[in-house]
């Protein structure tokens, strides 16, 4: 341990009751403290198990008109892809498909046959979509679009009210279809 750091820790040991945390003098400490509410607008990641899903709800019926207005131009009618996507050319992905996984060809992977968890679908739409207007949807609209895509894929009851609790319970068919490529590098 560098001497300066040792001295700083030593000082802390005696000043402990006064300071809330050890002051390590050997790095600049130029960040500014932020609270959870400061970060709230940016705090948009979702854990695979649904942790961090926000309040709000939506249904497939509510999602359908939003899909038509904001998504269909790139992802095709009903999420079935544009002609370009269907012909296998580079294009925004097909969202709704009953294709089966076919060996190693990754062009056959879909939300329905491949994604192991459902909450990341909400996470991706909220973070990145629509392509030309990201972060423009309300959480209610994101729940509604998520419900629409899941329902069109027959992964949920079309009448389901999707919210943090119900989205977490959606079972994806390929939940157990993966192995980590480098197990030694995975956190334990």
């Amino acid at each position, binding site marked *: 341990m560098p001497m300066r750091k040792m001295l700083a820790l030593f000082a802390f040991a005696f000043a402990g009751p006064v300071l809330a*945390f050890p002051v*390590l003098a050997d*790095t*600049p*400490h*130029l*960040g*500014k*403290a*932020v609270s*959870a509410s*400061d*970060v709230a607008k*940016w*705090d948009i*990641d*979702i*854990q*695979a*198990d649904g*942790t961090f899903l926000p309040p709000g709800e939506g249904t497939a019926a509510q999602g359908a008109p939003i899909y038509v207005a904001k998504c269909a131009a*790139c992802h095709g009618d009903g999420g079935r892809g544009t002609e370009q996507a269907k012909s*296998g*050319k*580079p*294009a*925004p992905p097909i969202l709704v498909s009953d294709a089966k*996984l076919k*060996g*190693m*060809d*990754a*062009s*056959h*992977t879909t*939300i329905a046959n*491949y*994604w192991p*968890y459902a*909450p*990341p*679908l909400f*996470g*991706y739409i909220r*973070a*990145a979509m629509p*392509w*030309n207007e*990201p*972060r423009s949807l309300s959480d209610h609209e994101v729940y509604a679009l998520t419900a629409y895509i899941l329902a069109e894929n027959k992964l949920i009851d079309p009448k389901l009210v999707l919210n943090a609790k119900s989205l977490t319970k959606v079972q994806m068919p390929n939940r157990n*279809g*993966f*192995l*980590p*490529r*480098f197990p030694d*590098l*995975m*956190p*334990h």
Partner: protein
Amino acid sequence: MGRRGDLSGEKDDRQDIEEIAGNGLLHRRALLRTGLTAGVLGATLGPHATGAAAEPLSEPPWGLTVGEDTPPYQGPSKFSKNIVRSLANPKFEPRSSLARTPHHMLEGSLTPNGLHFTINHTGIPDIDPAAHRFVIHGLVKRPQVFTLDALLRYPLTSRPAFVECGGNSAPLFSPIPIQDNVQALHGLASCAEWTGVKLSILLDECGIDPRAKWFIAEGADGPHLMRSIPLAKGLDDAMIALYQNGEPLMPGNGFPMRLVLPGYEGNMNVKFLRRIKLVPGPAMSFWESQVYTEPMPPGKSSGGKSYNFNFLNEVKSYITRPSHGHVLKEPGVYEISGIAYSGKGKIAKVMVSADGGRSWAEAALQGPVQTKAFTRFRLPWRWNGGPAILQSRAWDDTGAFQPTRSEFVAARGQLDSEPPVTAFRNHHCNVITSWAVSGRGKVTHAYA
């Protein structure tokens, strides 16, 4: 080398330099010997070694007049204007845009900034560096926000690191060799010297909650791309990079700041970095649930499952010169030159073959050989004017080495049909690349 891809050899008057592997491979120091060996080689490397008699020299026009004004920021010579990246979405349709590095026209071990490969999923953001903020929060004791000015006051470190898209080399999953050049096949990899702040310093200042096992890194651009990264990598060699080859990051490479995770697949090196959140588990984001995973054919090591968390770019090499599209003008001596790298460590050895893998010679490695960075390898070769198949095979310092085509296909499989060359779908292909040289000197992509 000629800019149209012509390679001029030297007259074939070196027949007494002994081959050390089949089809004309020479010792890696054969053309560098001086002093004690000069007497042996003097006859062949003397005044006649450069071919036909020279013409009398005359004064060229550029030396007889005033040149151009000196620009504040210089670009390449007009004679280098074809040394550019190739674009996979030139009309900027609403999808990802890719630009590939022209390895076949470059040398050395660092990629010029304007030619560094880039993939942008929603265009290149126009980020005002003074207004950019970077926050660390989640399972930390003291969540904090940093400005670029603040980070510039931290201890900076510089290191070379390659960045390689997980989908680089994907055309080699094709069942037939796609007839395209090293830029199309392997152009989604580049290497720069990155300068920035070690992430471990900032994490230390924020105080890590022991429940944190991963962190989510998020970009400030339209996709707000998120990747889940083991915290151990963040505490090891992860860097918040601010400079690329000595100047601020290029806009397409993450300006004003990006995450650099040496050796880990490109997509995890989140550009336009604005947020790191320490978390107990991974997000399984779109990028981790679908794009950067590896569906496997039945009967392989995964037992029918697909691989995810495909962090590492494993050891790889490819010859960049001569390579597909080049033409050897005449028999004689050429230098074989290429790039090798490994996400696990340093390149230990590169072997080169000119006879499709039947015999091999060890290439010279250009030092200093650095961990998780491009290493340039070179080897002299005397082309006898007949057919040849050039290959390189690299080893890293963990002992890992590149598979042959048959080994790779046995372990990983290959596609049933030829995929579009620009649309990578399968990932992490590090098979040996082969270039066939025809009797007329034409170089093409081959499988061997």
